[in-house]
């Protein structure tokens, strides 16, 4: 098993763990954490392919990860603001109880 295979397997595991958390947890904040984990798994893939790819002097992989980290930060800020806003209205972050759009 090569190094690249090992990194890709770790990344796949992280993605599956984040997906399982996002699909099974009740709390909205932890669902957001699961989505962050999936984004991080994708970033690890980019860096691994950049490191072991044929054109490592082209910085596309690294640049993509830098921009992806920036987008993830914006996503986390807006997502948590939405969760706090919903919590103020429903007094809960349990996704099973937040089941209507009309307040």
């Amino acid at each position: 098993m090569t190094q690249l295979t090992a990194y890709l397997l770790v990344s796949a595991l992280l993605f599956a763990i984040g997906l399982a958390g996002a699909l099974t947890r009740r709390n909205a904040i932890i669902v957001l954490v699961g989505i962050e984990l999936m984004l991080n798994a994708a970033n690890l893939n980019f860096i691994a392919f950049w490191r072991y790819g044929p054109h490592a002097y082209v910085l596309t992989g690294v640049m993509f990860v830098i921009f992806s980290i920036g987008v993830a930060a914006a996503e986390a800020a807006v997502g948590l603001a939405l969760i706090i806003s919903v919590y103020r209205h429903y007094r809960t972050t349990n996704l099973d109880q937040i089941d209507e759009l009309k307040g």
Partner: protein
Amino acid sequence: MTYTFAIIAFLTVASAVAAMSLRNLVHCALMLMVTFAGLAVLYLALGAQFVGFAQVLIYIGAVAILIVFAILLTRGSEPPRQSIFSATWVVGVGIAVMVIGLLGAVVLSSRVVTRELRPAPVLSVRDIGEQLMTTYVLPLEVIGLLLTAALIGAVIIAMHEEEGK
């Protein structure tokens, strides 16, 4: 494959599992910080120093702290009385197992990943800065605009409305 990689990978995956399965939400957030730190070490091991330190600064320093704030603001630090997993958790776990099975099979059977090992590329922050100011200057401006809009939007969404609704 070195022992260092095995230990860090195990720590990262184990803390990710803990972050997704612990009952107390504050513990989840702290375990998430361990996962992010493990990923930063993996980036450093791959030779991407700038990305590793950006991961520490942005994820551990900002996103994880933001999540802790959200947990405390929503009284999530009290453990819930009912189950932490939703009623349809079997479906969710099944989908995740299918995804890991598919990804694992694809990675292990791929011919791309069995090519020869190349020497580590040299990556300096100067190169990244030059690329950001030349090739990637438009994405840089766009992401600056996006971050500004997102932060203003987050403040407006979470701002408490004093009178009326």
